[in-house]
């Protein structure tokens, strides 16, 4: 039954074309998440936010006279499980509003673009995933993020031509596409990047700081996890290396403000993001926080929620559009998404999905730790696009 023939079902009030993952009453979506592995942090809040979206949408009557259903599979960041989970869900769902683990997305890319053609929104922003009709990231890719970060350092933090800036990054898609960006920007701005590649297992940044100090850097970029950025900032401060540190989106989590590193973080840590901070007073985030806390009392709120919620919402929008054109087949949804040129989910940034080879935006906010704000961060610099970012062409893998 996994190859149920595409056709038009008479059941629904409106006769719309459907194929996999859609029947008369429900639209099934897949979420390949990581709740037990290295990205459990991200996975949990993304998934809960998406479940929230599904709940709200269904309460509001669903989409296209159908209820949404989210099939969640936890792969614990294990390639074999991830691929198996994909194989299991692929025949049953319309598409994937969540797929954590860009290596795994890459692993099944062939099949997504090949026979499956289901819309996948990965929670991973490496530009290697660009260029596919079916795999669509939401937000600026890591490289664009870092380009804007460098621009911020030059414009607002007094980093000058000829200066050196360090970049500490994870091995893997995330860190390495971030470095691609910072290098590009440094090139433009006449700076040099001092690389420090680390592994997720490295928790103590002392050696890295020592090395950067030796190199005499004027600022530090970091594309790693929260633990690493906290250590980095703390050690730098202790070592009297008082330079601004700017991180990628995944480098910050509100818990850090409860650690030894808090003062240092508040003093000179920033991070780039292509959404408003969850604590912002804008209606979008405010409402999300309210609903989220109502749904999951006592759960911490962080930016992962926004990523998750946005992904689900965008997917929902795409289905709605597809429904209007009476075609909620996989192809229909993908087509619908392509026609969304300025979608704003209320988190500050409008996305243009018309060109699969480009990130949906090149804008970034620069955020700053803030113990008063919800989610522990507030806007340090309003959204902007550096000219370097506009001239940058991501290297699609």
């Amino acid at each position, binding site marked *: 039954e*996994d*190859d149920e023939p595409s056709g038009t079902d008479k059941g629904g009030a409106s006769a719309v074309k459907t194929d996999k993952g859609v029947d008369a009453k429900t639209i099934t979506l897949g*979420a390949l*998440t990581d*709740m*037990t592995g290295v990205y459990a942090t991200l*996975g*949990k809040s993304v*998934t*809960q936010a*998406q*479940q929230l979206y599904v709940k709200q949408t269904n309460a509001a009557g669903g989409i296209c006279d159908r209820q949404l259903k989210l099939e*969640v*599979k*936890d*792969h*614990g*960041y*294990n*390639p*074999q*499980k991830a*691929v*198996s*989970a994909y*194989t*299991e869900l*692929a*025949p049953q769902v319309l598409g994937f509003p969540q797929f954590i683990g*860009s*290596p*795994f997305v*890459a*692993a*099944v*890319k*062939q*099949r997504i673009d*090949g*026979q499956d053609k289901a819309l996948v929104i990965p929670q991973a922003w490496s530009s*290697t995933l660009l260029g596919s009709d079916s795999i669509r990231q939401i937000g600026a890719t890591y490289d664009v993020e870092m380009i804007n970060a460098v621009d911020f350092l030059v414009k607002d933090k007094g980093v000058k031509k000829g200066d050196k800036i360090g970049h500490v990054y994870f*091995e*893997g*898609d995330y860190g*390495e596409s971030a470095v691609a960006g910072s290098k590009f920007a440094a090139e433009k701005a006449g700076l040099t990047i001092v690389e420090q590649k680390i592994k997720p297992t490295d928790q103590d940044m002392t050696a890295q700081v020592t090395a950067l100090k030796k190199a005499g850097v004027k600022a530090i970029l970091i594309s790693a996890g929260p633990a690493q950025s906290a250590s980095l900032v703390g050690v730098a401060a202790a070592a009297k290396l008082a330079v601004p540190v700017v991180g990628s989106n995944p480098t910050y989590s509100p818990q850090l403000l409860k650690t030894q590193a808090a003062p240092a973080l508040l003093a000179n840590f920033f991070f780039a993001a292509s959404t408003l901070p969850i604590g912002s007073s804008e209606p979008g985030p405010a409402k999300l926080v309210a609903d989220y806390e109502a749904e*999951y009392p006592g759960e911490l709120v962080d930016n992962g929620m926004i990523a998750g919620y946005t992904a689900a919402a965008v997917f929902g929008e795409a289905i709605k559009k597809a429904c209007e054109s009476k075609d909620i087949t996989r192809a229909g949804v993908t087509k619908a998404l392509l026609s969304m040129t300025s979608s704003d989910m209320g988190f500050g940034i409008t996305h243009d999905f018309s060109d699969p080879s480009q990130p949906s935006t090149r804008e970034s906010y620069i955020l700053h730790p803030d113990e008063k704000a919800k989610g522990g961060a507030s806007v340090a610099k309003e959204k902007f696009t550096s000219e370097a970012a506009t001239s940058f062409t991501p290297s699609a*893998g």
Partner: protein
Amino acid sequence: MSDVMRRPRFWLGGAGVLVLLVLPFYVDRFWLQSGLFAMAAAIGAIGLNMLTGATGQLSLGHAFFLAVGAYGYCVLAGTGDDGVTGLGLPTLVAVVGAVLLAGLAGGLLSPIAGRLRGAYLGIATLALIFIGQHVLFNARDLTGGYNGRDVPPLNVFGLRLDDETATLLQVPFQSMEKLWYAGLVLLAVGAFFARGVLHGRPGRAMNAIRDHQIAAGVMGVPVARVRAQAFVVSSMYAGLAGVLLALVFQRTVPEYFGFALSLEYLAMVVIGGLGSVSGAVLGAVFVSLLPQLLDRYSDALPLVSAPGTGGVAPGEASRYLYGAAVVAVVLFLPGGLTRLRAGTARKPS
């Protein structure tokens, strides 16, 4: 012959084979894929069991040799048009080449391995994992780096085992269905060969080394050479397993070939039963299918709820059960799962 046919084992075996042969006509891709993972694991485990079980050489580096096989195949068979090195050899040749490469890697290691014993050897081989992964991540034009590289589909005498749907008796045959049979053949051949080795002259020499290295030498067994040979053969099995895995994945990624994988293989041979082929196969099936089953059905368990809805997530539940299962098997079946089968009272060798 006839008395063989009178034995129930014969009929059971026959039935089993039949089921395996018709399976692709009935089960969906997910299960076929899981099955193929198990087959690959079985091949790898047989290799490891020859080394650790039969020759007493603890190895935590098995994943490395799997990687050599997997990437070796990609490099040899790859067309090179996706930006990474590819020699574009015929895929069957590439398979053989990859296996040989893995064997070579094992051979190169054996001088070091030859000097080490027990846990020292085990952890020394662990180094291979870290070094190997480092290379996988950094030797971009060979491995494609962190995002790995595509695996050219196997091409058996003009029949491409890829996702081009070929319909057979109204059943769409895609890569998994086709690979299924390739997997079966490889496993069968591998098991047959291993049995021959273990029950034959080399097997006796290997066991002698395991049980009393000095005596083995005095009995005329060239200890260093046999240990090296065991290493090479086991690596070749790993290589073959790696190739099959790659074909199933359709893309190889470095993350996969990590420490955890090596431990899984060790668990397979121990859980199945050290030193025997059947043990390796049983263990492989247990270790690679159990988590799948648990993942799939654990939400049926009490106080397990869908991920993100609070409570114990199925992923977690299956981890618990898997961990418990590993402990239980080792504690209550010290000889491994093979002990469950009657007639294998004495430790096989």
